[in-house]
C-alpha cells in the first residue's frame, strides 16, 4: 500500500503497532501447540488433576510418553501413521493430476457447455459431502472397495475446489503461449505438459499443501470405509483413545504432537512455493 509518503515519525509508531498486532496473532496461533507439547511430557494423571497448564516440572516431565506410542496396543499407532501417509500421497497425486487438467481445460478453451460445467463445479463446491454418505457407502460395497485405501480416496479424485483454483490460476496464463506451442507442432497435451506445467508449479505447490492437509485430517469417510484397526488413519485412531469408556491420555497427547509434526515438516519445505502459488494465482470471480 502506498504508505511511503507518511512522515517518518508516524510511520515508526504505525510500524510498532502493526508488529505488536502481528505478535498478538502469532501468540494466539501458537499457544495451543505449547499446551499440547507441555501436556505430552507429563503423565496423563497430571492433566486430570490440574487441567491444562504450561508449567514445566522436571520431576515428572519426560519423553517417556512418546515411548508409550510404541507399546500401545502392540504399536498400532505406527500402522495408523502408515495408513494416513499412503492415503495422503495417493489422494494428493491423483487429485492434482485430474483437477489441474480440468481447471486448465476450463480456462484455456472455448467450447460448448463450458459454462455449464463450470457452474456444476461451483454447485458441487457448495454441496455438503455428508448428505451423500449413505448412497456412496452402498456404491463402495457394490464396487468391492470396502477396507481399501482406494475406497477412501474415491470421493476426492477430482476435488472441485482444486478445479476452481487451477482454473483461476490458468486464466492468468497468456494464451499466446498456447499458440506458440502449436506453431512448434506440439499436441494439446504436449503443450500442457511441456509449456504449461512448469508455469503452474506454484499452483501445484499450493494445492499440494491444501490436499495433504485435508487428507491428513479427514475423519468421517475414512472411518466408514476402513474396517480393520491396522488400516485406520491417525484421526480415527486418536478418536479411540478419547472416549467416555476409557481414555488413554498418556498416548493421546504425544500421539497428537506426532500427528502434527510431519505435516509441518512438509509445509516448511514447500511453504515458499506454496505461499507464492496461492498469492500468484490471484482469484478472479
Amino acid at each position, binding site marked *: 500500500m502506498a504508505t511511503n509518503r507518511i512522515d517518518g515519525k508516524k510511520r515508526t509508531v504505525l510500524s510498532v503497532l502493526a508488529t505488536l498486532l502481528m505478535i498478538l496473532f502469532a501468540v494466539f496461533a501458537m499457544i495451543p501447540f505449547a499446551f499440547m507439547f507441555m501436556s505430552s511430557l507429563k503423565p496423563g*494423571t497430571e*492433566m*486430570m*488433576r*490440574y*487441567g491444562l497448564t504450561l508449567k514445566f516440572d522436571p520431576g515428572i516431565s519426560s519423553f517417556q510418553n512418546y515411548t508409550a506410542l510404541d507399546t500401545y*496396543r502392540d504399536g498400532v499407532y505406527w500402522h495408523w501413521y502408515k495408513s494416513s501417509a499412503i492415503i495422503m500421497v495417493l489422494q494428493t497425486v491423483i487429485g492434482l493430476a485430474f483437477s489441474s487438467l480440468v481447471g486448465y481445460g476450463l480456462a484455456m478453451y472455448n467450447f460448448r457447455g463450458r459454462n455449464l460445467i463450470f457452474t456444476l463445479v461451483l454447485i458441487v463446491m457448495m454441496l455438503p459431502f455428508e448428505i451423500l454418505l*449413505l448412497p456412496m*457407502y*452402498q456404491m463402495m*460395497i457394490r464396487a468391492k472397495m*470396502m*477396507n481399501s485405501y482406494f475406497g477412501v480416496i474415491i470421493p476426492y479424485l477430482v476435488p472441485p475446489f482444486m478445479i476452481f483454483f487451477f482454473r483461476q490460476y490458468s486464466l492468468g496464463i497468456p494464451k499466446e503461449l498456447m499458440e506458440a506451442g502449436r506453431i512448434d507442432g506440439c499436441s494439446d497435451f504436449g503443450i500442457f505438459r511441456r509449456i504449461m506445467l512448469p508455469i503452474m508449479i506454484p499452483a501445484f505447490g499450493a494445492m499440494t499443501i491444501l490436499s495433504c492437509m485435508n487428507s491428513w485430517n479427514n475423519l468421517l469417510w475414512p*472411518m*466408514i470405509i476402513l*474396517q*480393520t*484397526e491396522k488400516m485406520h488413519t491417525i484421526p*480415527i485412531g486418536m*478418536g*479411540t483413545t*478419547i*472416549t*467416555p*469408556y*476409557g*481414555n*488413554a*491420555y498418556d498416548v493421546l497427547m504425544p500421539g497428537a504432537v506426532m500427528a502434527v509434526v510431519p505435516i509441518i515438516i512438509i509445509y516448511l519445505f514447500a511453504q515458499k512455493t506454496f505461499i507464492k502459488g496461492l498469492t500468484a494465482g490471484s482469484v478472479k470471480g
Partner: protein
Amino acid sequence: MKKLLSVLLSLILMLSVCTALADDAPIKLTLWTFQELHTELYKVMLDKWNADPTKPALEIDFQVFPYEDMHNKLTIALQSGEGAPDLVDIEINMFANYLKGDIGLAPMNEYVEPIADHLVMSRLNNYSKNGNYYGIDHHIGATVMFFNTSILEAAGIDYTSIKTWDDFHEAGKTVLEKTGKPMIVWESADCWSVYPMVNQHGGDWLTPDNQVRMDEPVVVNTLAFMKSMLDDGTAIPCPGGWTHTEEYWGWMNGGNCAAVCMPFWYLDRFTNYMPDLAGQIKIAPMPEWPDGGHKSAQMGGTGTAVVASSPNVEVAKEFLAYACLTFDGCVTTWKICGFDPILMDVYGSEEMKEPNKFFEYYDQDIFAVLSEVLDDIPDTCLTEYFPTATDIVKTQMAYRLVELREDPEQIAHDCAEELRSQID
C-alpha cells in the same frame, strides 16, 4: 537316486500334512467394540477356550472404534447387508435401533433359557424382542451411591445413616454448612442423573407399546426434588456437563464433592481417574424414596450380540456364551473389568473374594452392598423410541432443569410433547 526319491516322498508327505493342518486352521472371527476394556476380558477367555481341546480353535480380530462411529458403522453395515463383523458390542441406548424391521442379530435363546433362573433376566430383557434374546450383557449396572467419607466425616455425618432421599438432602445441607462443598452433582448434558432417579422412583419414559410416560407425576416429582437440591446449593451442575469428563474427574479427585450416584461399573472410573481418593470412597445403596419405588435402577450396559449374517454364527454364539454366561467368564469379568456380573451364582463364591485393585481402593465388602439391592431392580422399557427419548432428555430435560432451573412440570410437559411428535 533312492535318496532323492525318499526326499521327494517325504516332501510330498510334509505337504499333505501341511494341507491337512490347514483344514484345522483356526476359525477367524471379527469383534467390534467401543470399549477397549472389554477386549481384555475376551482375550483372557479366548486363551482359555483355545486351551480346551474340545473347542474348535478360534482366532478373534478385535477392532476398537470410537463409540459413536462404531454404532454408525454397524448401522450402515446392517442396513446394506454387508461389512458387518461376527460379534459386536452394542451400547444399551442404541440397542433398540438394531431390533427394527428385519433383525440382523442372532437370538441367543438356546444358551440363555436353560440357565434363566440363574441370570438377572431384567438385564437380558433389555436386549430382547418377541421372546428372543439378542444381546448378552457383562454387568447388572445397579445404580449405587459413592460417598466421599472424609468430607462427610468433616461434617459429622455417618454415611450409613442416610436411608432416604430426604436424609440425603438434610445431610447435604449439613455438609454445605460445615464444609462449603456440595453434596452431589446433577448432569446437565447427559441422562445419568435424571434417568436412574426417575427409574428408581418407579417411572420410565415409555410403555412397551410406546405410550409416553415422560409427563407423569412421578417424573415431575423426581425433577422437583432434584431442583430443590439445586436451589439450596446442596447439588450443583456437574462440571463439564456430565460425569465422564476430565474436568469432573479432576474436580472430584480434588475432594470437592461429597457423593456421586452412578451405576456399579463406575467403580473402575474411581480407580483409574481419581487415584487420590483411594480409601475415602465407600459404596452404599441409593437412598430410597419415601413414596415407594425401588432400591436401585439399572443404567448403562453393553449387549454383546452375534450378527446373523456371519458365516460362523454357531461358533460365535458358543464363544459369546462361554465368555459371558459361564461361572468362569463372569468371575473373570469382575476381576478384569470390575463389573457386577449377571450370573447370580458367582455372588458369595470364594473366587469373587480374592483381593484385587477394587477391594484395595474401596476397602469394604462391595458385594454385601450389591446383594442388598439385587432383588429390587426395576426393568427399563427399551422400545425403538428409547434412543429418541434419551436424546430429548440430554438436549432438553436435563439441561433445562439443571442449567436453566425451569419449572419441572413445564419441562416434563414439553419433553413429553416433543417425544409424542416423533412417534408415528
